């Protein structure tokens, strides 16, 4: 706090005290730039020297940022400049100048690593940049608003700042897993804004990178929502943008991984097993440790699907034991979930249920509805196989609620059909009918199923008579599984 006075009183006093006076403003831009060039030269030779921040020092730091943004400097110089700004003892910093400077310097280092490439260091600098941006209230408030609720001038003003743009894209990366139904709208609008900048921006290579990144997350959202044609189109866009960046290999590898995941979701695991080992090797060569683990996870999942369970188990254990996995609650949770499912398939239901409970806190921390819904669904399947139909129906109900809350309508409908089937098997016919009644409008809304017209008609008739037909439910269940291939 500067004073016990109200801020309005402070301003009034200041205005009165400085009326007609020239108030010193520190170093001129030219002086600051000259000193910055000297400091950069010394930093390159002897490293950062910490000390108290004077007003002139802040001007020199800003000037240093400007020099670094306008020139080409080694990562080591950027790192030393960052360390200098970070190590200085800042007094009251009501306007978050320290974080502004650190965000800009971290962004420069991130971009240097991106072009380097140094994927591992890129992640670290990205994290630092995001931390400094989100420390500032003005940017937190901006990022908390959806794209559509911000005015065009607000978007233009804030997203023109590269650290803010990087943070916005990173936010999208998280929300595409936690709230895909909302994130997809954000991604589409951000993509339109970015591509409108391509012809006017002097840094079109960076804009292409971000456009590709946003298109990639749009594709991921569509995949979560079960819209595979839209997923493919957006991934094509991502690939086209990434191909025109300075170092495309790691980005194109991510695109390939995303395509393989979609094939896995469409139950075409046999088509991907041959592709995954070379993709994993690419990630390893590029130093993309988390992507490498996700690639191994995908391979393990595909092996599990085709019945090669021992090989799948071995690969899941590799992912689970990696230190990078421990820092990623979604990857860890999904790996433990898969191990639980495997235990069930190996005929160890009690062990399976124990492992599935272990996965729950990680998946809750990740906030991923796909993960959480999947956990309840797998638990339900294990319970059902053990004849615990009521408990299975409860778990299917939890999965349904997770998908419904996240706007994942297709998954919601599928869970309702599975729950209906389970309720029918346990003699709870009325509840089975109720569940179907809730599922059918969603199924009808998601798309027509030519080969299930008869099943739908039979079910509607069953509902009219307040009776559920198990054969129709089974047929509908098969149709829903195959419907995903057509969306």
């Amino acid at each position: 706090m500067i004073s016990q006075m109200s801020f309005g009183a402070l301003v009034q006093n200041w205005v009165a005290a400085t009326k007609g006076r020239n108030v010193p403003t520190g170093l001129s831009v030219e002086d600051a730039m000259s000193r910055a060039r000297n400091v950069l030269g010394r930093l390159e030779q002897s490293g950062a020297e910490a000390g108290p921040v004077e007003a002139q020092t802040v001007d020199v730091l800003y000037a240093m940022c400007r020099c670094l943004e306008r020139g080409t400097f080694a990562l080591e110089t950027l790192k030393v400049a960052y360390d200098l700004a970070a190590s200085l003892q800042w007094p009251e910093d009501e306007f978050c100048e320290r974080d502004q400077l650190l965000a800009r310097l971290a962004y420069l280092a991130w971009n240097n690593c991106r072009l380097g490439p140094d994927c591992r260091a890129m992640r670290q600098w990205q994290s630092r940049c995001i931390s400094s941006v989100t420390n500032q209230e003005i940017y937190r408030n901006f990022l908390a608003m959806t794209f559509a609720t911000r005015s065009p001038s607000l978007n233009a003003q804030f997203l023109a700042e590269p650290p803010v743009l990087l943070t916005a894209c990173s936010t999208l990366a998280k929300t595409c897993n936690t709230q895909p139904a909302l994130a997809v709208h954000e991604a589409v609008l951000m993509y339109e804004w970015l591509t409108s900048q391509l012809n006017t921006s002097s840094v079109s290579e960076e804009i292409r990178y971000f456009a590709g990144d946003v298109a990639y997350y749009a594709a991921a959202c569509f995949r979560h929502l079960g819209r595979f044609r839209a997923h493919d189109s957006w991934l094509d866009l991502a690939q086209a943008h990434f191909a025109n960046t300075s170092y495309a290999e790691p980005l194109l590898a991510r695109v390939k991984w995303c395509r393989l995941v979609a094939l896995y979701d469409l139950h075409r695991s046999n088509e991907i097993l041959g592709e995954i080992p070379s993709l994993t090797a690419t990630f390893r060569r590029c130093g993309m440790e988390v992507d490498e683990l996700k690639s191994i996870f995908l391979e393990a999942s595909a092996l599990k699907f085709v019945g090669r369970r021992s090989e799948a188990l071995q690969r899941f254990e590799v992912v689970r034991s990696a230190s990078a996995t421990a820092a990623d609650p979604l990857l860890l949770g999904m790996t433990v979930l898969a191990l639980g499912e495997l235990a069930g398939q190996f005929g160890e239901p009690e062990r399976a249920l124990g492992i599935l409970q272990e996965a729950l806190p990680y998946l809750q921390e990740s906030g991923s509805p796909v993960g959480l819904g999947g956990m309840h669904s797998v638990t339900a399947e294990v319970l059902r196989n053990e004849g615990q139909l009521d408990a299975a129906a409860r778990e299917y109900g939890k999965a349904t609620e997770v998908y419904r809350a996240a706007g994942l309508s297709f998954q919601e409908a599928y869970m309702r059909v599975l729950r209906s089937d389970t309720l029918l098997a346990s003699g709870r016919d009325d509840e089975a009918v109720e569940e179907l009644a809730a599922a059918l409008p969603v199924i009808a809304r998601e798309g027509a199923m030519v080969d299930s017209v008869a099943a739908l008609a039979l079910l509607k008739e069953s509902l009219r008579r307040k009776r559920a037909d198990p054969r129709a439910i089974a047929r509908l269940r098969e149709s829903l599984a195959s419907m995903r291939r057509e969306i």
Partner: protein
Amino acid sequence: MASRARREQPPEAVATHARIPMSEPELEAFYRGVFLPLVRRATWKHGLSKEDASDIVQDAFLLALSKLDSAGNPKAWLVQVVDHLALNLQRKSARRTQLGHRWGLGDGIGESSEDSELGIGD
């Protein structure tokens, strides 16, 4: 770029706060903690000279006398106003340069006497 004329504060705006004189340490603290950071923002974020940045920040303080809502976040408000004033000044400068090139007058075609539009509501 030449300094812009400082706007005289309207006498009625002074009455919004009963003025208790600030001590020298308080003035110094305000100078270092509010005035200079805003000047640096206008300078380094918006590419203005220190003189123009100083004028804009003082204009923002004058606006604050009549428009600042003390129940809100005054510093965030000042940042927003400084950003708007700086962008307005840049647009004016760009128009001036454009017209100068069009009419073959080189740098600058004289000061505009009109006040810049703030472009934001109360």
